[in-house]
């Protein structure tokens, strides 16, 4: 075991897999010599050579398309899209090709590509360095979609993603790279040192895709969330003194509905929290599925707390961010309902 922040954990996952499997190759803008703008691939080109860690042209669509071709020829490409906000030029290759190869070819062709990309706000990135586009991938059948909330899961899930025979969209909440974030930008940044999930095995291990985790046990209400908001929800529950059960979804597709509904059946109340824009967001799927499965147990409507339905504005980052105050308000509302 070692203490790692999320960057180191991701780097360690890549390193572990490149050492174990010579078919793993990395590609992306600035990932090679430089080691990536967030330094997730630092040192890997030096170690594995410039034929396994490729700097790419600035062409997200081309990166994904060539990764597909490589994967079809037996490599295991891990492509980095520098920011999730810049993944849209690759959307066609992801939706029309990557997600559908296996299906349309009756199982004969498939491309186990992993696409890593930093997402989310809270780093003063303005409207084009803060987006959380999980919903526009979750709706595309044939893709797995994951978002870890801590170094341990990040490494374990990334290893699983690389080994997975299906394509995986791997969303990394960049606000968590250096430490957990509890939603108050005024407080000094925390390191991962003090967090139990900052302890990460040095070598190979996996965290399964398709399993949610109970991040905090509780009996009064269930908070279903993922990514950065797992920690913000913790802080909110703590501040409000509410005995909330917090579920870290981790795997958006496939979704571990059983863990979610079991909790909601127990607590009878639920809020869903994510950073992405609320309207048409993944929260809708969560609410719809949970209310269907738990209707007779619900003592209050399920509420969503999410980014406002606007772009993520530079100057109003913290007004935009669905922080503890909004979560507490929602918790109180569902707690008081009857």
């Amino acid at each position, binding site marked *: 075991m070692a203490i790692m922040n999320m960057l180191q954990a991701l780097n360690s996952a890549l390193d572990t897999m490149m050492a174990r499997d010579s078919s793993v*190759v990395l590609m992306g803008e600035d990932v090679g010599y430089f080691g990536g703008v967030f330094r997730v691939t630092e040192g890997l080109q030096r170690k594995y050579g410039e*034929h*396994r860690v*490729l700097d790419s*042209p600035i*062409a997200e*669509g*081309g990166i994904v*398309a*060539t*990764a*597909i*071709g*490589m*994967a*079809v*020829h*037996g*490599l295991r490409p891990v492509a980095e899209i520098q920011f999730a906000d810049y993944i849209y*030029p690759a959307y*066609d*290759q992801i939706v*029309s*090709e990557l997600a559908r*190869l*296996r*299906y*349309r*070819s*009756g*199982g*004969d*062709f*498939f491309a186990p590509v992993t696409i890593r990309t930093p997402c989310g706000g809270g780093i003063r990135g303005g409207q084009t360095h803060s987006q959380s586009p999980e919903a526009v991938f979750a709706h595309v*059948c*044939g893709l*797995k979609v994951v978002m870890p909330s801590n170094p341990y899961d990040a490494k374990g899930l990334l290893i699983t993603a690389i080994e997975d*025979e*299906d394509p995986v969209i791997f969303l990394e909440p960049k606000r968590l790279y250096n430490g957990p974030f509890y939603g108050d930008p005024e407080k000094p940044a925390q390191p991962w040192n003090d967090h139990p999930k900052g302890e990460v095995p040095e070598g190979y291990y996996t965290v399964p895709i*398709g399993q949610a985790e109970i991040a905090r046990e509780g009996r009064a209400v269930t908070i279903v969330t993922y990514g950065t908001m797992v920690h913000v929800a913790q802080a909110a529950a703590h501040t409000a003194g509410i005995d909330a059960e917090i579920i870290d979804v981790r795997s958006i*597709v*496939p*979704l571990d*509905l*059983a863990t979610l509904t079991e909790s909601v059946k127990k607590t009878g109340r639920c809020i869903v929290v994510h950073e992405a824009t609320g309207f048409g967001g993944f929260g809708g799927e969560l609410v719809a599925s949970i209310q269907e499965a738990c209707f007779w147990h619900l003592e209050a409507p399920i509420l969503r707390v999410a980014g406002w339905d606007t772009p993520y504005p530079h100057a109003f980052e913290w007004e935009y961010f669905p922080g503890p105050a909004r979560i507490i308000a929602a918790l109180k509302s569902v707690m008081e309902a009857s």
Partner: protein
Amino acid sequence: MTTKSRLHVPKAHARPGETPDFSYVQISPAGAVARPEINAPAGDIADLANSMVRVLDEEHRAIGPWHPHLDPGELQIGLRHMLLTRLYDNRMQRMQRQGKISFYMRAYGEEAVSVAQCMALRPTDMLFPAYRNQGLQITRGRPLEALMCQALSNTRDMCKGRQLPVMYHWKEGNLFTQSGNLATQFPQAVGWAMAAAIKGEDRLAASWLGEGSTAEADFHYALLFAAVYQAPVILNITNNQWAISTFQGFAGGEQRSFAARGGGYGLPGIRVDGNDFLATYAVTTWAAERARNGHGPTLVELVTYRGGAHSTSDDPSRYRPKDDYELWPLGDPIERLKQHLIRLGEWSDERHATLEAELEQHVTDSWKRATSYGTLTEGPRLDPDLLFEDVFKEMPEHLKRQQAQLRALRG
């Protein structure tokens, strides 16, 4: 507003009722274009993009430096594959008209592209076709029956009923799965070739798209990545002059050959008479040798004509003259190879008629076998359980639930 507009709008060569005018097609005499060494740098051979490699002359002789000197036996095989492609196409079109299949697209007039190019490549080379490359399947020896089963979406459909007719693939034959989305295969082929290079193999990738599809972003990605990493790939543009109703001018063909796009990226572009079996074969061999010997990618423009409708959903009489194909200056690829073989003394009208009858019979027999595995409307059907398979390698819970739901509904 219209009157003062200064916008340039490309013009089709002729519209219904007008006389076809193919003077816009720049044609080099057979034998006129030099054949550079395979290691010639792209910058030195830019002219290949502006001329047209041709081997067969007006008298059906093969001449000039690109003459590939194929055995008559090989030429006969080429003729056979082209003819089979055409007969297969014609039958399937008829079957669509009769409601046996839902849709079809012929390669009428451009059979040489797939057949000659495929023969110039090795079976281990990986092919990423577009939807008018059925000739690749036929040349690689795919039984017609297998293609028909796909078009029928029947119980032996390689796609398990999931794709429109003509969206074939053949894993063992190194033929990639076709997409309904234009051009996506082009950069994928480059990625495959990059992997081949990383692995140190001497296999190469080849891909095809239509001249209309060169407008898509994927065309650009393919050229760029191929050039940057010098991938062993052949990128082929089948310029059949039309993209549904849209004339090639709207894809940028008014200004320039499509082969000329290569030069800017640093890859050689070469323009070839795509209805000349020998020229097409020779150019492909040259490009393949370049790739196999580490001299990188090549962009090939195959100048040809879409002799028929875009698909069975299309009616070209609405947008081009009816006699277009008859007046197309590069003729018909099958007819030209046939005449060449006759001139060589290696073929005759009689042998041709016999071959045609044999192949017709083969098509008929194949169709009979194929339909015995079901059609869209009759006979055995694929198990609807398959609807939920292959979305993922292993079926996740939610799909299992849905599968059970559908089963329950079907009773």
